[in-house]
């Protein structure tokens, strides 16, 4: 774990999933890590720009990586699977071939943007706190035990696969989320779809296909007895949380399981308050019993 990170919250945590941003900032403060802002960065392209305009994707990624470098950080901290994959993928392409990097830098120079020398790593919050010194540091701030809370980990695709770009852990049998759930004093729940897709990338363009994917983790986690699902990805969160009622209509059964961002689960164990974890910003609301198990003091009149 580093002392300072170039912080890249990405679009969702900056816009519709603001509760993830505020929870992350709160947990970073507890962990005593400094998050350096990058006010000029764009969207990572979410795989969409990579698919539509690959050369443009490579350039905007280099611009993001270059800004991190300019800020004096050697690591970008991400809190989204899709940002993690897209930035790492571009970073690998840029670091692997000096000719590619030189051409991209020539173009960046021409438009007056910061260039990139190739010295930045991109790492997700999950990786930083689930192993090594980061894990020890989290254990030391996890002052509340979430005993009795059954948590189904949902990894999402783009923090696991392709392993040659991500490669933090075994992509078929990951255990970083389970390790953190246990560090919170809660009980991890196992189910096969925890490493499968939530359908989010195609939920607008191919809603039925996406819902066919989304119902699997929701139904399996409920059937396995989970109180909540936790995910390190705000896109998975939006899919599992906001599209849950559509998934229920698709599958013809009641669902209604609350979805937590990883930073919210960690935050609850670290005693961070509702005003920063902002559970009210979820479409699928936390039931009183789950809220009690999370032990978050609910402050009357907290602004959404």
């Amino acid at each position, binding site marked *: 774990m580093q002392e300072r990170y170039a912080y890249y919250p990405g679009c969702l945590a900056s816009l519709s999933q603001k509760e993830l941003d505020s929870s992350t900032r709160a947990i970073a403060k507890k962990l005593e890590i400094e998050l350096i802002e990058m006010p000029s960065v*764009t969207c990572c392209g979410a795989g969409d720009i990579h*698919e539509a305009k690959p050369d443009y994707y490579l350039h905007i990624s280099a*611009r993001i990586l270059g800004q991190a470098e300019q800020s004096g950080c050697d690591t970008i901290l991400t809190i989204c699977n899709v940002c993690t994959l897209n930035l790492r993928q571009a970073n690998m392409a840029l670091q692997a071939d000096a000719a590619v990097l030189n051409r991209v830098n020539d*173009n960046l120079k*021409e438009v007056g943007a910061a260039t990139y020398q190739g010295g930045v790593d991109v790492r997700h919050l999950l990786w930083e706190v689930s192993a090594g010194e980061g894990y020890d540091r989290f254990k030391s701030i996890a002052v509340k035990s979430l005993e009795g809370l059954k948590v189904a980990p949902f990894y999402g695709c783009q923090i696991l696969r*392709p392993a040659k770009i991500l490669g933090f852990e075994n992509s078929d049998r990951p255990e970083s989320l389970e390790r953190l759930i246990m560090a919170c004093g809660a009980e991890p729940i196992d189910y096969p779809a925890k490493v499968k897709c939530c359908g989010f990338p195609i939920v607008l363009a191919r809603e039925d296909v996406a819902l066919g994917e989304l119902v699997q983790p929701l139904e399996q986690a409920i059937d396995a007895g989970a109180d909540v699902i936790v995910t390190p990805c705000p896109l998975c969160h939006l899919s599992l949380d906001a599209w849950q009622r559509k998934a229920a209509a698709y599958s013809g059964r009641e669902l209604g399981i609350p979805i937590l961002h990883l930073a919210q689960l960690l935050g609850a164990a670290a005693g961070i308050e509702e005003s920063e974890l902002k559970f*009210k910003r979820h479409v699928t609301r936390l039931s009183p019993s789950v809220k009690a198990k999370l032990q978050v003091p609910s402050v009357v009149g907290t602004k959404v």
Partner: protein
Amino acid sequence: MAAIENAHFTTLKGAYDTETMEATVKVRRYNPETGKSRFDTFTVTIPVTATVLDALDAIKDTCDGTLSYRKSCRMSVCGSCGMRVDGGAALACKVPMRKFVEAGHTITVSPMGNLPVIKDLVVDMAPFWDKIRAVKPFLDTKNADTPAKEWRIDPADTALIHKESLCILCGCCVSECNSMEADPEFLGPAALAKAYRFVGDARDKDTRERLRDLSGAHGIWDCTRCYFCNQRCPKGVDPRDAIAKLGAESFKEGFTSDPGAKHAKVFVDSTYKGGFLRETELVPKTIGPANAIKDIPFALQLARAGKVPNPLSPHKAKDNDEVKRLWKLLEKEAKGQPRRATAVHPDAVQEG
């Protein structure tokens, strides 16, 4: 040190004359006559160098001759022995048994997914072949000036389709495709990787027609980017990357009317206009204003949770003029290039 008794290893024994080990394998069985499935567990003695396929051969030779599976080359070239090992599709001939035995782990072998099971580990590949056929897996030069001797291709041009040319049609990618599980009609990773092998071929003259067909229903925009195909492919084809390349080629040809392509365009435009994604534009521009209106009750659920950003004040990153200039520069550069000059495609960069 147990002796190798079964007939199958008499040849191997001479070649390897090696240590043996006891291995236990759990196999999913399916009997088409009764329609019933079950798991059988077998223990066999195999050389320490044995693969999962060798273990199945030993089971068939010494325990149960009715066990059915496909095999041929035994060296990861023919693509016959695709099956799931502990739930993940792989070539049985490419997975060594030793690490499992040493870990005291009993592997479970089951048939590939997304394809109907015929018997035990044998799946019906007919739907797989139908999709391969559907993408016209052959060169169409439209009778264009056939050279007297042979086509000569610049090595840089063959490099563009090198990875896709490595496909051995084993079906491991299809087995794990999350989109195909939800939409069995999706062309899927193997057929789309094959399609790119021809779309990207400098000799092929059917490019526009191919891309028009591939960018419609059940085509490239069905892919949910779960990356299971890249993860499972035993030959490094990276089918998902091939699908992304097809997306880029369709954009170049102007095939952007599919909702998936429109979705991608909103991301491109958002970065150009302001930096971060314009979430409120994503829905109407992807599914059309009429469908967006039908979805208003859903949008209200999101709005109540504070999840609809104010469309009147979209996010603006600092210094975004740099990005505008970058976009214009790259578009100008791309215009001057022949369509296939995509040597700088990030996916064309091999891992180092």
